[in-house]
């Protein structure tokens, strides 16, 4: 049975606690084909993060196809300050944004 990523019925309870756990966790985005959930500490950049996350999954899968990398499981992007880990499990995609410089 397929679970919907909603507040009441989330498959990843632990990740919801992530932003509260440490200041190095900026937030997360949970996505499947029908719904998405975003929880970010930087509320003014929600759109930027959402669009970046969407592009990351799209570009990542396109690049993987070109290089014949089958079944993409994880996409990791490191910037100067932010690290993004995107875990792909079937149609469910979980992205966690981390601050590289822990305050």
């Amino acid at each position, binding site marked *: 049975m397929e679970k919907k990523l909603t507040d009441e019925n989330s498959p990843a309870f632990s990740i919801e606690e992530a932003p509260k756990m440490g200041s190095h966790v900026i937030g997360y985005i949970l996505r499947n084909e029908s719904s998405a959930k975003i929880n970010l500490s930087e509320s003014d950049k929600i759109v930027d993060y959402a669009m970046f996350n969407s592009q*990351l999954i799209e570009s990542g899968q396109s*690049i993987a196809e070109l290089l014949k990398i*089958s079944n993409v499981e994880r996409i990791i*992007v490191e910037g100067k300050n932010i690290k993004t880990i995107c875990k792909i499990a079937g149609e469910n995609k979980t992205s966690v944004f981390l601050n590289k410089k822990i305050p």
Partner: protein
Amino acid sequence: MSQPYVFALRNALEEIKNAEPCVQKIFLFQKDGEVIAKDETMGLDAVKALTGFFGELMQRAENIDAIENLTIEGADTTLNICCIGDLYAGSVFSRETDERTVKALTKIVIPTIIKLVDHISPVAQTLPTHQEKTEKPKETPKLSKDFMLPKAPVNQFIVEKMGGLLAPSNTVRIDCKITDGWLEMYGDKEIHEVNLESINGKTTRCKFKPNKDSKQCNGTIQVPEKIMASLKIGIGELVMVKPVVELEA
């Protein structure tokens, strides 16, 4: 980017691939998407398409952060693209590869090679190729005779006021022994003017005349009031004199 630079990078990447069987693919591209080097297993169109996707991702990331490293982990293989200065190096490994080996290659070996080639490249560009050596006869630069002239001597004199009603205001009088020495030094070169420099750094150029009365001007220079004023010097002060040698046109 020069041919020797690209050639050196391509060879280095090929050698890495040969030395490490875990490396399946390896390529290098610029931030603007231009492909610098790639191994034979990859088509140019595929790498160009890849740089296009990567460019789109970089654009989206602009508002958040600049991408320095991208890793895509598949079931059997892993792609790593890392930023090295203005270049991005991409490599595809087998998932079985030891993580230390991957890190050593992507974070140490490849960046070191690129930096090394960067360092050598300017020297390589200045070196003539074999073809150039055979085709172009060695040209010797034509030096003008003026470049072989001795350096103009600088003499120090004590300033004396030039008197007389008919004394020209733009001409100084210098001991003829000194001016004769200049003529001997420069041969047929014409010397009509001298540069005067005071102790406080003021300079001026004026005409000169040799003073044949050596008793009258031994170690001294006779300077009209107008020039003294422009140099802001007075009688008894030191002034440096340098001949102006007329160069051929």
